[in-house]
C-alpha cells in the first residue's frame, strides 16, 4: 500500500511534536554525561589531574586493558551476575506469588499485603539497609537475640556480614524485600485489567482452567511480565546503596563488591576517575547486551513493542 507523500510528512511533524519532550530530557541529562564518561575513561585522570595540578594524559584504551587483566574485576563481575540473578528470580517469584494471593485473599488480608508491599517499596534503600543491618547486628540485633533465646547459643555474637555468602545472602534478602512490591503491584493491576468477557468466552468454548491460564491469561500478561523482568535485571545489576551500606563499602577485603560499588570505590575512594569511568562504561555495555539478548528472545516468541 502506498501512503500519500503529504500524509507521511505530516506524520513526521507529529512525531517530532510528540517525541520532542522525552527526547530533549534524555539527550540533555543522559547523552552529555555519558559522553563525558566515555571521554574520561580514555585518560589517566586521577586526583592531581582533577585538581589541575598535572596535565591530562591520553591513554587510549590502557584503562580498559588494565581492567580486563585484573583478576579482581572478573571475580567482581561473576559475583555481580550471580547476585543479580538471585535477586531477580527471588523478586519475580515472591512478587508473582503475592499478586495471585492478593487477588484471591479477602479484603483485610489483601489490604495488609498491600500495606506491607507499599511500605517495603516506599522505604528508601538507605533506611531499608539500616533497619536490616540493625536487625542482624551481631550485638544490637534482635535476630541473634531471638535465635539465642530459641536455644541456638552458638549464634550469640555471630556476625552475619562477615562471611562472604552470608553477607551476600543478607543483602539479597533485603533487596527482594524492597523490590518484590513492584512485581506484585504490576501483576496485580494486569490481572485485574483482564476483561472478564475474555475468560468467559474461553470458558464457554470449553477450555480447561490450565488452558485458560496458559493460553489466555499469560499471553495478556506477557508484556507486563517482560517489563517486570527487564526492570528487575537492570535494577539488580546496578545495586549500589544496599551493598555499600550493609557490607561497609564492599565487605572484608572487597569480597562483597559488585560492579557499581567497585566503580565508585575506584573513582571516588581511590580517586582513579579514569579507571572508575572505564568500569562504568563496561557496566553500561554489559547491561546493553543483556537487554538486546532479552529483546531478541522476546521477539522470537512473538512479542512486539
Amino acid at each position, binding site marked *: 500500500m502506498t501512503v500519500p507523500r503529504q500524509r507521511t510528512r505530516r506524520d513526521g511533524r507529529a512525531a517530532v511534536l*510528540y517525541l520532542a519532550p522525552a527526547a530533549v530530557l*534524555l539527550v540533555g541529562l543522559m547523552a552529555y554525561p555519558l559522553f563525558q564518561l566515555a571521554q574520561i575513561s580514555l585518560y589517566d585522570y586521577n586526583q592531581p589531574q582533577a585538581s589541575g595540578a598535572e596535565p591530562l594524559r591520553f591513554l587510549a584504551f590502557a584503562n580498559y586493558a588494565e581492567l580486563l587483566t585484573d583478576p579482581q574485576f572478573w571475580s567482581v563481575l561473576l559475583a555481580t551476575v550471580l547476585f543479580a540473578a538471585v535477586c531477580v528470580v527471588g523478586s519475580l517469584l515472591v512478587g508473582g506469588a503475592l499478586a495471585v494471593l492478593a*487477588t484471591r485473599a479477602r479484603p483485610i488480608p489483601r489490604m495488609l499485603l498491600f500495606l506491607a508491599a507499599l511500605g517495603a517499596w516506599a522505604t*528508601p534503600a538507605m533506611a531499608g539497609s539500616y*533497619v536490616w543491618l540493625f536487625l542482624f547486628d551481631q550485638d544490637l540485633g534482635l535476630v541473634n537475640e531471638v535465635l539465642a533465646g530459641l536455644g541456638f547459643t552458638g549464634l550469640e555474637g555471630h556476625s552475619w556480614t562477615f562471611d562472604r555468602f552470608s553477607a551476600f545472602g543478607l543483602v539479597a534478602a533485603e533487596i527482594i524485600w524492597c523490590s518484590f512490591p513492584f512485581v506484585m503491584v504490576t501483576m496485580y493491576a494486569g490481572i485485574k485489567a483482564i476483561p472478564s468477557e475474555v475468560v468467559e468466552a474461553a470458558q464457554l468454548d470449553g477450555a480447561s482452567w490450565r488452558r485458560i491460564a496458559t493460553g489466555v491469561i499469560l499471553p495478556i500478561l506477557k508484556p507486563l511480565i517482560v517489563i517486570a523482568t527487564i526492570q528487575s535485571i537492570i535494577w539488580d545489576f546496578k545495586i549500589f546503596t544496599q551493598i555499600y551500606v550493609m557490607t561497609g563499602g564492599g565487605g572484608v577485603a572487597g569480597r562483597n563488591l559488585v560492579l557499581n560499588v567497585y566503580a565508585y570505590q575506584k573513582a571516588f575512594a581511590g580517586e582513579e576517575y579514569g579507571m572508575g569511568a572505564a568500569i562504568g562504561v563496561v557496566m553500561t555495555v554489559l547491561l546493553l547486551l543483556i537487554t538486546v539478548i532479552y529483546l531478541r528472545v522476546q521477539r522470537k516468541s512473538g512479542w512486539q513493542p
Partner: protein
Amino acid sequence: MTTLTERLPSTVDAPRPPKRGRGQRKRWELTAVGVIVALVFLFPYIVMLIGSLKSRPEILQVPPTYLPQEWHPENYVNMWNTPETPLGSNLLSTVVISLGGTALALLAALPAAYFTARHNFRLKMPFLLLVLITQMLQPTVLASGLFREFVTLGLNDTLFSMILVNAAFNLSFAVWIMHSFFRGVPKEIEEAAWLDGCTRTQSMRRVMLPLVWPGIVTTVIFTFIACWNEFAASLILLPTDTNQPLTVALTKFVGQYDSAWQYVFGVSLIGILPVVILFSMIEKHLVAGLTAGGVK
C-alpha cells in the same frame, strides 16, 4: 507457576456464591497465609517503630531489649531540632523534588508513549530502544558529567536540577509502562470516537485517558516513589544541607562510632508515611480495572 496461574481465572470473575466445604476452607487458608506473609514483611516496620521510641543509651544496649523500658515519644519532636541536619527543609526538598520530577516525567512520557503505541514509523524501534537504554544509566556513574553540566547552566545545587535528573531517570520506565497500556486499547475505540465527531483532543480526554487511567496511576505511583527515595544523585549534586532530601539527611544520623538509631528509624517512618497514605487513597484505581468495561 502452574498452581499460581490455575487460580487466576476466578479472580476476574464476578463475585460468585461461596462454595461450601473445601472451597470455603481454602479461602480461609489463603486469608491466614495472607496475614502471616504480610506480618513477616511488616516486621522491619515494627522494629523501626519500637526503635524510634527508645532512648539513645537503650538502643545501643547489649543485649538488646525487645520493648522500650522507657518510652520516648519526644524523639519525634526532638529530631526536627538536631545539630546533624535541618530536617524541616529536608522534608520540603523531598516533597518539591518528588512532585516536580513526577509531573515532568509524566508530561514528557505520555505523548511519546501514545505516539509510539499508535503509529508505525521508521525510527520507532530505535527510539524505544534508546529510551530503554537510558534506564541502564545511573546517577552514580553519570554524576560528574551532570555536575559539570549544571554548573554551566547555573543550575548546580538547586532543587530544579534534581527535578530534571529525577524526571530523566524515570522517563524510560514511564514511557514503557504507558506504551503498553496505550497499546492495550483497541484502535477501533478511538476511531469510533472520531467517527462520532470527537476531535483528537476530545477523544484523548474523554475516551483514551479514562481507559488508560490505571496505567497513569501506576506510573505516577512508581515515579513518585522512585523520586522520593532517590539518594545517590542528591548526595553528589546537592551540597547545601537545606536542599538535601530526607534520604541524604538520614546518613547524617549514622556515624562510625556514634549512631542516633532512634532518629534514623523515626525519620524513616516519617518518610514512608506519605507514600503509604498516597497509595491507600488511590488503591481503588489500581484494582478497578477500568479497561474491563470499555473493551466490549
